[in-house]
């Protein structure tokens, strides 16, 4: 009896590893292939017989995308747009998340539901009026205008995520500080926010990745070099210059580096935060 149970357990473990390994390969394999492609000479990509391991390794694709296109400018624009988006969300969203987490007031649930419902609006439905509005105030094709457009769908997300982290921060220390004579603002600034700093970082990174990756709004709301972000630039390069596969792959790898870096940095906290928010929501 004990033997069959142990062997059954062993079989389940083997099956688990089989599933985990094949799923990981499924997820990572394509990215590894893109990386290998970025290291190949174009002649080795367009061949009769497929080269699985590159015969010759070259970095000329990376040099090409960085020096012979506007890629550095695009990356710089993306960086600034992402930064503005995060700063605006941090400055305004943190306060709202704190209010939702700590206070009960009339209309609280309605307002929180409202924050969720706005995420249901189709992107296109937002893009057209945003285009008209931004154009009339002179913010079309500007990095601030694009960042403001991003807050339309990222600020509600930020508030919901951060509220989960605030909920998880113990209330006792805050009460102690209040008894100690601290103001509400003081307790929030010096007690609660430091307690929830992991959550602040994770929520910020999550919206930073979303802003960095965003494509549709950027395609519609930017027209020139001044504010165009890298997803739009890369897509247009493919269309206009018949971008060689190796160069495109190099551009892809370069542009996901920051995402992977940020993800690696905070994946543990972020996974907790995502799941906590989702369960409560």
């Amino acid at each position, binding site marked *: 009896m004990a033997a069959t149970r142990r062997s059954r357990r062993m079989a389940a*473990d083997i099956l*688990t*590893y089989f599933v*985990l*390994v094949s*799923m990981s390969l499924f*997820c990572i394999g*394509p990215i590894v*292939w*893109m990386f290998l492609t970025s290291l190949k000479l174009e002649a080795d990509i*367009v061949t009769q017989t*497929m080269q*699985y391991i590159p015969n010759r390794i070259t970095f000329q694709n990376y040099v090409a995308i960085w020096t012979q296109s506007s890629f550095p400018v695009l990356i710089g624009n993306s960086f600034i747009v992402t930064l503005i988006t995060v700063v*605006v969300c941090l*400055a305004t969203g943190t*306060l*709202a998340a*704190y209010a939702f987490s700590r*206070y009960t007031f009339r209309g609280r649930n309605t307002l929180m539901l409202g924050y969720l419902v706005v995420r*249901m*609006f189709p*992107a*296109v*439905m937002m*893009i*057209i009026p*945003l285009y*008209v509005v931004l154009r009339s105030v002179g913010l079309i094709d500007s990095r601030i205008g694009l960042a403001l457009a991003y*807050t*339309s769908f990222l*600020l509600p997300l930020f508030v919901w995520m951060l509220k989960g982290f605030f909920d998880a921060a113990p209330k006792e220390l805050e009460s102690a*500080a209040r008894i*100690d*004579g601290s*103001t*509400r*603002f*003081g*307790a929030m600034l010096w*007690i609660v926010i430091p307690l929830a700093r992991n959550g602040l970082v994770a929520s910020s990174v999550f919206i930073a990745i979303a802003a*960095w*990756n965003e*494509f*549709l709004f950027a395609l*519609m709301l930017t027209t020139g070099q001044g504010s165009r972000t890298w*997803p739009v630039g*890369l*897509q247009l390069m493919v269309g206009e210059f018949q971008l060689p*596969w190796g160069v*495109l792959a190099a551009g*892809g790898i370069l*542009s996901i580096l920051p*995402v992977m870096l940020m*993800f690696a940095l905070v*994946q543990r906290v972020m996974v907790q935060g*995502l*799941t906590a928010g*989702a*369960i409560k*929501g």
Partner: protein
Amino acid sequence: MDTGSHLPKTGMIGELSETRYWIYLLLLPSLVIILLVIAYPTIYGMAISFREMRLTRPGLTGWVGFKHYLVMIDDPVFWVALKNTVLWVTFAVVLELGLGFIAATALNRNVPGTGIFAVLILVPYFLPNVVAGHMWALLLDPRLGVINDILVRVGVLGSYKAWFADPNTALAATIFVEAWHGFPFFALLLLAGLKGIPHDLYKAAAVDGAGPIAQFRLITVPMLKSVIAAAVILRVISLVNSPDLLLILTGGGPGDATQVLSLYAFQTAYKDFNFGYASALSVVMFVILMVFAYAYIRLSKIGQE
């Protein structure tokens, strides 16, 4: 007044926070932004759907009532896009839910190394659409696609196939790419759900003689119901609303084989600059989504919990 607090002084804002206006001060900044960048544009967008607005023909303007909606009824592309939207979203969600469930179940067994596997499985979800799209275009390329090569070597395919150019396989191929991109989202949420099920339930069921299948049917599925419902509805919303991947992979082609509503609306706005009709299309999309969400929440009864 010396409050005696050991924390640094907070000045005027600190004093303000003791008044009853504090809560409104906290909410005001984000509310102003939301009203400015969401509420106003939304109402404006709905208004545009009843107007003529083409950037290419500035003279053509004014209210047209339900004209765009009537045109839509006779627009064959609209109906094709509607059908494709339903197919695309349904198959993608079913596939992602299935893959996500398998991944979550495997991760939940907590075998050594689970942490690394969890990170690897999550990665596709954070990959930008632009990169994911072109990467899969390369993998499935009719001349140099490695997947074609593997399938030919294994003997599944006779020769390389142009997955995205063949109207019979284009939609299926894009669904496959979307499933790759989106299933980690389900894996993440379902894993959280699985972790929330108390272990005692399974022990008690095992004592009562319930096998793994009965345990799955009688404990896992009912306990996960609300998580599944929430995950499905969030995913449906984002799938219906975002045409990014299709825009990059096929642009709706070949013909209208992969044309969906969100993409059609976007192209109407971006290529033709026909803002009035594009707005009407997105309003219809929004109404369909709302009706779906309402019916779905009612049917799955997640609202009661």
